């Protein structure tokens, strides 16, 4: 037993959870899967007077198709999404990213919303959410609002959610038309946080030219980062004529990696460029063969 003392709350509705959060706002934290939060409590990197457990709120669970988005309840376990046919069919990038998170024991408990709300820049789900332009729905005392992924991730472990708001669900755009997706990452051991990683999504027009492209990096700055300049450079190019290595070199210019005990910034940049070239090539090939 390593965490400091806290008071435990187990609400059974989102409204009840939001009320609890409002009443204890400066001293409270919501806990979902706890696979990042509990280690932080155990190491006493974080300490809260109140923990508000979302695990008994059924309405925060589940995966459903709504028009052109796949809506994933924040409390949906990563393992449930990993084995969901809806996710595999409609959001292939998410389907491919999920097995890369931690280990299966972690994914059995960790949640989709928890990982996104935690906003770790080196983790897979924030990167995928940014790459696909997912939207996050936050519920607070004054109702709910929807935030685009491009406005959601503020800094390391910081999102634009207010202290009295709870992430209720994430809406991922479903794959349409002639599209391709890839995620690549490099970690020292299976399940470790990646030294660098990248996800790509491309859509081709009827002439097999790139109509839309998205390249998002993880572990390459204080938030997941989009490479807008490289994405724009791809638009209009035939899928089989893209210089993936050159595009990847341009893409990593959008990143701001740091040095740490695992890797220098320069090494991270080289790794990221190599991964981006591979991911882009795979995404383009998949789209071109679709």
């Amino acid at each position, binding site marked *: *037993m*390593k*965490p*400091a*003392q*806290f*008071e*435990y709350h*187990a609400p059974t509705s989102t409204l009840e959870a939001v009320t609890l959060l409002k009443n204890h706002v400066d001293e409270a934290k919501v806990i979902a899967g*706890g*696979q990042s939060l*509990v*280690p932080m*409590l*155990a*190491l006493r990197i974080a300490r809260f007077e109140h*923990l508000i*457990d979302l*695990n008994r709120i059924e309405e925060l669970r589940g995966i459903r198709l709504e028009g052109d988005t796949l809506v994933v309840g924040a409390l949906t376990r990563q*393992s449930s999404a990993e084995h969901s046919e809806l996710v595999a069919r409609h959001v292939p990038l998410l389907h491919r990213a999920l097995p890369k998170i*931690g*280990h*299966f*024991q*972690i994914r*059995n*408990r960790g949640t989709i919303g928890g990982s996104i709300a935690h906003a770790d820049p080196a983790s897979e789900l924030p990167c995928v959410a940014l790459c696909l332009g997912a939207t996050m729905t936050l519920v607070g005392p004054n109702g709910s609002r929807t935030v685009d992924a491009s406005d959601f991730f503020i800094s390391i472990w910081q999102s634009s959610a207010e202290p009295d708001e709870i992430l209720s669900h994430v809406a991922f755009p479903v794959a349409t038309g002639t599209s391709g997706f890839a995620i690549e990452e490099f970690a020292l*051991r*299976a*399940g470790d946080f990646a030294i660098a990683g990248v996800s790509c999504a491309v859509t081709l027009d009827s002439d097999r030219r790139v109509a839309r492209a998205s390249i998002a990096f993880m572990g390459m700055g204080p938030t997941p980062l989009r490479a807008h300049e490289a994405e724009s450079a791809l638009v209009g190019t035939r899928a089989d004529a893209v210089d993936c290595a050159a595009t990847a070199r341009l893409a990593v210019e959008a990143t701001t990696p740091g040095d740490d005990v695992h890797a220098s910034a320069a090494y991270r940049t080289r790794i990221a460029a190599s991964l981006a070239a591979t991911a882009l090539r795979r995404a383009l090939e998949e789209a071109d063969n679709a």
Partner: protein
Amino acid sequence: MHEIPVSIEVNARERRALLEPRATLADFLREACGLTGTHLACEHGVCGACTVLLDGAAVRSCLIFAVQADGQSVTTVEGLTPEDGTLNRVQQAFWNNHGLQCGFCTPGFIVSVEALLRDNPHPSDEEIREGLSGNLCRCTGYQGIINAVREAAGN
């Protein structure tokens, strides 16, 4: 800090305790139930020694507070072992293949491998390695453990 009543079905038997909210599921199993087969090493989710089945899913019991598991069912390594004291299939395979030395990490491995083989009875070598990646062993070495899983899977 006040304590909260917790009731959890452990190895098909209901167990109750009064616990501080910060007590982990592993603390409950070891201290309230006396089931010390669930080992605690890192206590922050890295080593996998405390792996148990929670409603059938392999999880790290150091990353769940016992109060969160109230009303759920848990299977520990003790619950996976025949009552006559013999070894189960996975344990015997570890024995046969030098899959343990000091044995500290072994309960976590056994529980993880039980879950792995239940969901994927004949894993490839790559799937075995992936399935074992959430458990750390610091003395035996992994080759014997991988061989044990191969034998238990009948590969």
